């Protein structure tokens, strides 16, 4: 196809989009809702997957030390930890050091917590002789003095994952349903366009237009609908996720985890949403054309 023909089809498709007014708005909104849910759902699932693999690989027990514990008291705790069964090494990490890790993960906006504002605790990082022993070591460590909390990351997370698994199944079903609704709405809009322009399409054929030539603008109209529908969800997801990433940073890092870094993660997610949006639109258009644009 020649470039000027492409331009012509693009112009035609926008004309039609405008002419359909509220019908177009309804289709775009359907895509918007679908993609918004799809985006949230994907962000959720991908992060859960990331966290679960991190937790499975984590064989350390993190022992958070009470604030205000003196140096000798810490030394005492360290010896006690070392004497526990199945403990291999015990490493100390100060809260300043912990904050550095946060800053490393989440960027310099956390610098403001430095000094006395630092909300983190000093930590002993205890590694066990074997991964399975983390549970018993954690339980024993919790009973010791000056220990705020000891965790191996697993327990709470694993329960969370059970819930997440159920959520994931429901979300998948719901998203698929929404995809169908969006495709249906777009195909319906384009069907109405085709039917209302039946005479015109007949005339186009009479003056020598091929089917492909007649179809392109409808196909593009569907694709634009999908593309327009992806704008709002992308903006919402980008802002939403960046915000969530920031507010969860401190707490998650104190357990040694983090959400996926927004820049790359959102890029991939946005690209995916655009592709899905355009696909929904194009498929919707194709469905109508197959049924209503026969020779």
């Amino acid at each position, binding site marked *: 196809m*020649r470039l000027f023909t492409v331009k012509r089809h693009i112009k035609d498709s926008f004309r039609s989009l405008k002419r359909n007014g509220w019908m177009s708005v309804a289709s775009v909104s359907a895509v918007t809702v679908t993609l918004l849910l799809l985006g949230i759902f994907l962000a959720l699932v991908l992060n859960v997957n990331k966290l679960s693999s991190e937790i499975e690989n984590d064989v350390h027990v993190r022992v958070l030390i009470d604030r205000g514990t003196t140096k000798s008291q810490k030394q005492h705790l360290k010896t006690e930890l070392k004497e526990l069964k199945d403990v291999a090494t015990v490493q100390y990490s100060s809260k300043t050091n912990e904050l550095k890790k946060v800053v490393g993960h989440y960027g310099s906006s956390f610098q403001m917590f430095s000094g006395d504002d630092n909300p983190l605790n000093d930590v002993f990082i205890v590694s066990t002789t074997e991964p399975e022993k983390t549970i018993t070591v954690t339980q024993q460590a919790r009973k010791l003095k000056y220990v705020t909390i000891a965790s191996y990351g697993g327990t709470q997370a694993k329960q969370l994952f059970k819930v997440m698994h159920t959520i994931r199944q429901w979300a998948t079903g719901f998203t698929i349903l929404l995809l169908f609704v969006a495709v249906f709405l777009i195909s319906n809009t384009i069907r109405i366009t085709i039917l209302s322009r039946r005479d015109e399409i007949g005339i*186009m*054929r*009479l*003056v*020598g237009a091929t089917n492909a030539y007649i179809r392109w603008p409808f196909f593009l109209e569907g694709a634009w609908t999908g593309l327009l529908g992806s704008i709002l969800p992308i903006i919402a997801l980008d802002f939403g996720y960046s915000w969530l990433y920031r507010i969860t940073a401190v707490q998650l890092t104190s357990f040694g985890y983090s959400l996926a870094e927004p820049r790359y993660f959102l890029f991939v997610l946005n690209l995916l949403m655009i592709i899905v949006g355009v696909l929904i639109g194009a498929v919707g258009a194709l469905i109508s054309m197959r049924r209503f644009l026969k020779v």
Partner: protein
Amino acid sequence: MIQFINVSKKYNRTYALREINLRIEPGEFLYIVGPSGAGKSTLIKLLYRQIRPTSGLIRINKFNLTKMKNRNVPYLRRELGVVFQDFKLLPRLTTYENVAYAMEVTEKRPTIIRNRVMDVLNLVGLASKSRRFPDELSGGEQQRVAIARAIVNRPKIVIADEPTGNLDPQTSAEIINIFENVNRQGTSVIMATHNSEMVNQRPHRLIEVVQGQIVRDENKGAYHHAAIYR
């Protein structure tokens, strides 16, 4: 070259055309005359494959219309310029865009389209109304847009169904001039008409169709149709 061999067309139970045999050479000018309902439009619709014959063979240049696949129909139509009895202009396009559309579908360059469209609009005397929409034009003006569209691609064959139907004698004469000019450049012209005055003033080959059959085929034939058809 156009060839009809034993062509019949049946609508439901009645024959609109019966056993038509006809041969039209390149560069000919042919009138098709006959009373209303005789089958003139049917014959023309067969030419641009709006309808298929019930039986018989139709050939236009390299195309065999009887065997032709649907997807090849557009390429046949690009070799024909058709002026439809009811014009068939695209209501949402302006005069200019209507004429340009017939060129755009053949993927001509925009600059060529612009020049050609303005040329033919000048030729039919509508250059000043190029931005009007069809419903802002008189019947005769719409007819001239349809003619401009039919000749813009410089087709080998121009087919017109009643192109002077709504026109006064003066405008009719201008229109027939356009067709004769096109014909002089080697294009075949096939025109169905009731306009006996025009047929007699500008004689060309004439076939008369009555009740679906060709009853007369004369060079420079005259036509005086019966009073009841007036």
